[in-house]
Every structure is written in structure tokens, then in C-alpha cells.
């Protein structure tokens, strides 16, 4: 019972925090929309020369990039929740949370769910705007995409959680930006399909293939067309478990990195 209470409390807190920051939803939407309206518009006719699953026919670049931009929202949100965790720890509220008489992994899991749900909300808000712009998916795809987006969001939030256990100070967040967000986003199938990467260099393609973010994007891409992608599902779920375990380890006062801080 107290477990659920903790879940509810953490969800409420994150929801209130999200609602309190009115600019956050807007800014979370502006970033992918700029990419869609400005970046993708310039490449409208650039793609469409090769058909790769899940696509069955030629598509414009704007259609290709949408699942990648959904991934971008989840990625930035995962990192943002990591930022707010570091903030919480500096302010002391994290310590208060972690002293609750519940297993630490459960408390961290609750934070994870809260962060992921806010990500999902933003991802769907973006999909609605994209649909109004004329980029639509099969109606069933929007339903099928929900578990895929949720899983991808959990995976990226788990990564954020793990990173937050390693970051000592708020100022170091710029480092996260440079060394995590950018490589993860650009070295993935979010902006270009892997066959296009392979044209540039097979090694680049291999790097992208090894990036769990690529698989999160592909999972969402396939789901939006009502299709499954077992490899993407396995990698995304596996990465979530690994990052989650690392986060639990990182927050363990006996062994983790958090202990060295004090």
C-alpha cells in the first residue's frame, strides 16, 4: 500500500512541477517543430529513393523524420529529468525522498515512471501538431505507438537517472549535453536512415547500429505503422534494464558513486 502511495506522491509531484513550468511544454514542442518545419522542409525531396521497412512506398523527408523527432523529445526529457534530479539532490529533497522506508529501486522506478509519462504526453502533443501540419500515420499506429513511446521514454529516463547519479554539480549538465545528447541524437537513425549512413561510411553505420537510441527510434517508427520490430524492442528493453540497474547501483550509498560525494 505504501508502495503505491509513494508512486502516487512522486507522480503528483512531477505532474505539479510540470504544470508549474508552463514554458516547458511549449519549449519541448518548439525544438522538434523547428526541426520539422525548417530543417525537414529543406530536404523535402532529398529522400524517397530507397524503400526500407516499415515503409512500403516512397515518403518525403518530413514523414521520415517524425519518429526521430519523437525520440528527440524523449531524449531531451530524459536528460531534463536527470537535470532536475541533480537539482533535487543539491536542494536536499532527493535525500528526503531516498530516506523513505521503501526499497530504493522502487523510489527510483517511481521517478522513472513519472519522467516517462511526462515525455509520452509531450510526444503525443507533438504528433498532434504534426498531424495538423499534414503528416499523419494510420489511426491504429497512434495506439500501437503508445507502448513503444513509453518504453523508449523509460529507457531514456533510466539513462538520465543513471547520469544524475554521476553528476556532482548542476553546472556539469552542459557536459551531458555535449557528450550524451548530441552524439546519441546525431549518431542514430533519427535524421537519416542507416543505409544513408552506410553510404558515407560503414563504420558510421555500425556506430549508429550500436546506439540504443537508434533502436528506440526504430521501435517507435515501426509501431507508428502498426508493425513490430523485435530487435529494436529487445535492445530498447535491454538498455532500459541496464541503465536502470546502473542507476540503482549509482544511488546505492554503500557502493555507488553517490557515496563518494559526501
Amino acid at each position: 500500500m505504501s508502495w503505491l502511495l509513494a508512486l502516487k506522491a512522486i507522480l503528483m509531484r512531477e505532474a505539479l512541477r510540470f504544470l508549474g513550468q508552463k514554458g516547458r511544454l511549449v519549449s519541448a514542442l518548439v525544438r522538434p517543430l523547428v526541426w520539422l518545419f525548417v530543417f525537414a522542409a529543406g530536404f523535402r525531396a532529398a529522400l524517397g529513393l530507397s524503400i526500407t521497412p516499415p515503409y512500403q512506398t516512397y515518403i518525403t523527408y518530413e514523414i521520415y523524420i517524425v519518429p526521430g523527432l519523437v525520440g528527440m523529445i524523449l531524449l531531451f526529457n530524459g536528460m531534463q529529468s536527470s537535470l532536475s534530479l541533480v537539482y533535487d539532490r543539491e536542494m536536499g529533497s532527493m535525500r528526503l525522498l531516498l530516506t523513505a522506508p521503501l526499497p530504493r529501486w522502487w523510489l527510483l522506478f517511481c521517478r522513472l515512471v513519472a519522467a516517462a509519462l511526462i515525455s509520452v504526453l509531450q510526444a503525443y502533443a507533438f504528433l498532434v501538431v504534426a498531424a495538423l501540419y499534414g503528416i499523419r500515420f494510420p489511426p491504429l499506429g497512434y495506439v500501437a505507438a503508445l507502448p513503444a513511446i513509453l518504453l523508449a521514454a523509460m529507457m531514456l529516463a533510466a539513462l538520465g537517472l543513471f547520469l544524475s547519479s554521476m553528476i556532482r554539480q548542476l553546472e556539469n549538465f552542459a557536459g551531458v549535453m555535449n557528450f550524451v545528447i548530441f552524439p546519441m541524437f546525431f549518431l542514430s537513425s533519427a535524421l537519416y536512415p542507416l543505409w544513408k549512413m552506410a553510404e558515407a561510411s560503414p563504420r558510421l553505420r555500425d556506430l549508429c547500429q550500436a546506439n540504443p537510441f537508434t533502436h528506440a527510434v526504430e521501435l517507435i517508427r515501426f509501431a507508428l505503422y502498426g508493425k513490430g520490430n523485435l530487435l529494436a524492442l529487445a535492445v530498447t528493453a535491454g538498455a532500459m534494464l541496464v541503465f536502470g540497474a546502473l542507476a540503482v547501483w549509482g544511488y546505492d550509498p554503500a557502493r555507488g558513486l553517490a557515496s563518494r560525494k559526501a
Partner: protein
Amino acid sequence: MNRILTALLLVALPLPVAAGEIWVTNEKDDSISVIDVDTLEVVRTIPTGERPRGITFSSDHSRAYICASDSDTVQVMDPATGEILHDLPSGEDPEQFVLAPDDRHLWIANENDAVTTVVDVESRKVVGQIDVGIEPEGMAVSPDGKIVITTSETTNMAHWIDTATNTIFANTLVDARPRYAEFTKGGAELWVSSEIGGTVTVFDVATQAETHKIRFAIPGVNDDLIQAVGIQFTPDGKTAFVALGPANHIAVVNAETYEVEDYILVGRRVWHMTFSPDGSQLFTTNGVSGDVTVIDVASRQPVKSIKVGRFPWGAATRP
């Protein structure tokens, strides 16, 4: 009682019949790819003469006629077996042709000879040759069979031929390089596409006067690439689809207002089109990308692109 009625209704409902086939000529592969409309997959590949382009069926679909351009002949095929039954004398380099509604006279454009040849498919003899402009290509016949049109690519004209006398009774100028002509369903209008001009010219058949000029513009696509070729009207005659060649798009034109309503992305260098037997799907031949894009006519959305042979060109429907 209700349950019994429902059961009866279910039994009485006709089983879905085979939805037919789409036949596509592959210019570089010297073959025909046959696509099953139900599964949207290539089910047969049939060898033909050299460089097959124009393809059409007799009205009872018991014969397929294929322009084998580099073999300088029109081949007659049994569609059931894929066997070539015989060749028809066609004149040199036949590219497009049209079968008259009498099912007997085949009107063939001979690109290199500047003539249109009339062949009787029963006696297998040439029964007429009409001098037309340079590089004739597009062929159309009016629904009543009284008028045949030849468009000449270099002279930039549509030649109006009276089929009773086999003589040209009118010549009308169109934009550069007309490659395709099509009568509207009732036969009141003639639409001629111009590849270099990138336009479709609409004529009133009764007066042979130009009534409309349709132009195309696709955001992000250079005007030079917009090269209008194949034209197809929906069975209700209200909508026209125009293939725009290297622009890789099909234009959707309202045939009543002549307004371009939509552009649909297909494969590279789209040539010609044909409808599924029920008219719900449109199949486009994409020459450079070597595939056929299937378009859902109602939603105007591309559904799938099917790999066929190299340089698919002509398309015809077999129910």
C-alpha cells in the same frame, strides 16, 4: 430468428472474386511483370520482344497486344499462357497504339517513320498508313471510334484522324513534346499532355478548339522536372490523374474545374498508369526506380511500391 437471418446473409454474400491483374511492360528487361491486385505482388514474369512499351488488351481480354519497339513489331499474346501467338506488321519502331472500339483495328504510332499505321488484327494486314508529324507517339481513340488522335513529339501537334476515310481533318498545336492523349469518358473533350512544356491541353472535340491549359507546380521540385506524360480518368470521369515523369509525382486534377487538387509522391520517372478492375486503386509505372506504386484512389495516398523489372513503361489491367 435474427441469428438465422444473419447466418443466411453471411452464406448468401458473394465470396470475394479474384480481383485481377496488372500487366506492366519492362522496357529494358524485354518482359512483362504481372501483379496480382489482391496480394500486390508480382506473380508472373513473361518474356516479350525487344523493348516492350505500349500494352493493351482486346475488349474480352482474350488477347494482349504489346508494342515491341526494337523488334519493330506488335506481338499478340494469349494472356492465360503468356505464349506469343503471332506478330502483327506494325511499321518501324511502334511505341504506342490504341485498339479501336470495334476490337479489330489497331492504330499504331511509328516513331521513326512519321506515320500512323492501321492494322487489321484479324487479317493481320496493314490496311492504312497516314502521314503525320515528326516522331508520332501518343495515340487515342474517341469512345464512338470515329476519331483517332496521333500526337507528334517534334511537330508538337495533335493530329485528328477521321477513321471513316483515314485522313487527317484537323491539326492542333500543343506545348512541346506531346507524348500522350486521352479522350474524356463521354468523348466530349480531348486531353493532351506535353512532356517538355509540362502542361496538359484540353480540347473541345466538336470544334477542336483549345479550351483549357492545365499547369503544374510542386513545392520543392524544379519546374524542368515536371514533365507530363500519362493521363487516366477515374471511371466516373470526375478526376484525372496525370503522371509527371521525373518530378516523381502524380497530379490529381479535378476534371470539371481543371484545378490541380493534389500531388502524390511515387517512384522515379513515372510514365503511365492503369486502374484496378474495381477502380479503387491506381498503378503507376516508375521507369528509373523500376517499380510500380499503388495509389488508393479514394484517399489519394500511395500504399505500396512493388519492385518489377528494369524500366517499367506501359500498364494495362486484366480483370
